[in-house]
């Protein structure tokens, strides 16, 4: 979208939680006159006037707030409602970062738009440096197999093309759900057993933080056997905002803990796993081969 603002906007409406977080990061929160009902971070954001939700922004309320800039996302905000706002002469800026690099770019762009270009460059550079540190650290050591669950009952995992997949890869792990073709594949218990993740992350939303005992009793899955299940705040990992880097650091920390446990002499967990499975008629090895076949 082509946006021209002659002077830095003074009344901003944000229609996505990640964009709200970016405005706060840039220190321009005093100009926010409206956010969505999902904007809960930082805590002060929750006290700002609500303009509806992400998929159901309240156009009339937005117009009444007399914004001179609406920040919106093409991942969720309905096009026709944004168009109505534009037709009423309200400048709208759409950003939908698809990966970490996109998030950093968006911070710079929004910084320029809000009249804080230096602040934008500075914040983006600092986040880039943090992400680069993680990526540099992830290069060495064994590569854990990781599953990132966005729902536990049924089990739905983050597959290729999601932020969660990028976090896992950047932190130096293999996302076992990436062999499925969809972005959020639903996995059966047998899929889980075949994928054999070493560590499972759960993006926790209300009510779905735990796997059912019917699932966790499969101790053939290393993560269940070792209790390597890490719960992360769902908001942290599903919002393409500045805190995605915090999520990356938490993922990396959990994987470092896993690697430390697997160091030779630091316990027999790794060895036991290989033994247990190879004795079982080569299920583990065959499972890996199967994954490759799927990818082709």
């Amino acid at each position, binding site marked *: 979208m082509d946006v021209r603002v002659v002077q830095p906007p003074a009344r901003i409406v944000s229609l996505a939680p990640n964009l709200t977080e970016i405005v706060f990061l840039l220190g321009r929160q005093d100009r926010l006159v409206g956010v969505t009902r999902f904007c809960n971070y930082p805590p002060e954001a929750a006290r700002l006037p609500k303009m509806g939700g992400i998929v159901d922004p309240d156009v009339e309320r937005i117009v009444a707030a007399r914004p001179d800039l609406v920040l919106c996302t093409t991942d969720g905000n309905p096009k026709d409602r944004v168009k109505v706002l534009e037709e009423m002469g309200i400048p709208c800026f759409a950003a939908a970062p698809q990966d970490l690099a996109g998030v950093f770019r968006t911070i710079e762009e929004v910084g320029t738009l809000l009249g804080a270009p230096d602040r934008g460059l500075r914040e983006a550079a600092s986040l880039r440096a943090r992400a680069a540190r993680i990526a540099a650290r992830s290069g060495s050591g064994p590569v854990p197999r990781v599953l990132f669950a966005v*729902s*536990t*009952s*049924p089990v*739905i*995992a983050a*597959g290729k093309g999601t932020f969660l997949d990028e976090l896992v890869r950047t932190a130096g792990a293999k996302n076992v759900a990436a*062999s*499925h*073709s*969809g*972005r*959020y*594949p*639903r*996995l*059966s*218990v*047998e*899929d889980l*057993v*075949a*994928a054999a993740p070493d560590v499972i992350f759960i993006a926790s*939303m*209300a*009510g*779905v*933080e*735990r*796997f*059912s*005992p*019917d699932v966790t009793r*499969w101790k*053939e899955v290393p993560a269940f056997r070792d209790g390597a299940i890490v719960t992360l705040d*769902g908001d942290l990992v599903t919002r393409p905002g500045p805190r995605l880097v915090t999520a990356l650091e938490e993922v990396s920390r959990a994987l470092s803990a896993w690697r430390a446990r697997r160091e030779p002499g630091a316990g027999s967990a790794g060895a036991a796993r290989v033994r*247990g*499975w190879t*004795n*079982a*008629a080569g*299920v583990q090895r*065959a*499972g890996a*081969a*199967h994954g490759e076949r*799927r990818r082709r």
Partner: protein
Amino acid sequence: MTRPDRGDADGKPRAWGVVVALAGAFAGAVAWSVVTGPVPLSLREVVEAFRHVLATEPSRSPAARVVLELRLPRALLGALVGGALSSSGVAFQALLRNPLADPYILGVSGGAAVGALTAALLLPADASLPLPLCAFLGAALAAAGVFLLARRRSGVSRERLILMGVVVGAFLNAVIMMMVALSPPGKIPGAIYWLMGDLSLGTLRRVGLLVPYVAAGAGVLFLLSRGMDLLLLGDEAAFQTGLPVERVKTAVYLTASLLAGSVVAVSGLISFVGLIVPHGARVLVGSGHRRLLPAAFLMGGTFLVAADILARSMSASGELPVGAVTALAGAPFFLYLLRRNGGKP
């Protein structure tokens, strides 16, 4: 479909041959389901696994656990659910003398769904058994409610049953929508999958619990098969033959409802099977219920197990809801079957 099979002079060997062939297909589908899955196992490993049947859990090899604790329960669940829904559908179509009747027409599905959603909203996420239990209670309450509302001193008329069933069903649907709209986000994803039909909830224990219900329900319906033949003639004519019409109708209604309710409680709302398999079976063996009921049971079980195999393996993006696959893959097949029959329903 409303007239009894003209060739119903029982010893029709061809039709019984079809039943035997269907039994073969039924067993074949279950076997096929047990050998397919994401963990690659050779045929020998699968056969080996069955030697562990009597072994206790820890002494089983992982391959045997996959076969016996994941694939077998799921295959058996699909077979039971498909068979029970089809039998129940046959009974409802006879009872209501309506080819559009299915096990869900009189509110069983709505009652089960309200029960399941209540369980999902009020109980902790990892309490796994209460959902089937609440769903069954909901189904039984809805079925009983419809029956009591439709009953008059003179008995239960079909028209009132359908009317009350549709009204109660519409009311329960509204309750479902309210519950989904008002529930906090993330609270009911499991229940949503249940609403679409889900065979992944199969465990040996649940299948074991289900077997007596399905056996009893299908058995009682089979005993009522002559009664259902006569019901198709209409109440008056059936009464003339000496049939205790009201008692038979009550028995058919309650048995078919509880049969559907018990499987729906475990598998969720799998649609299409209970509506269309009875018609397919009728094309193959005629409408005499003594042959139709076993044929529909076997055909429904085969069909649902096959649909589940497709749902698990068709897409590389994870499992598809089996309830969608039944209609997607089943509609063309049954259209062919019905068309081939020269338009005779």
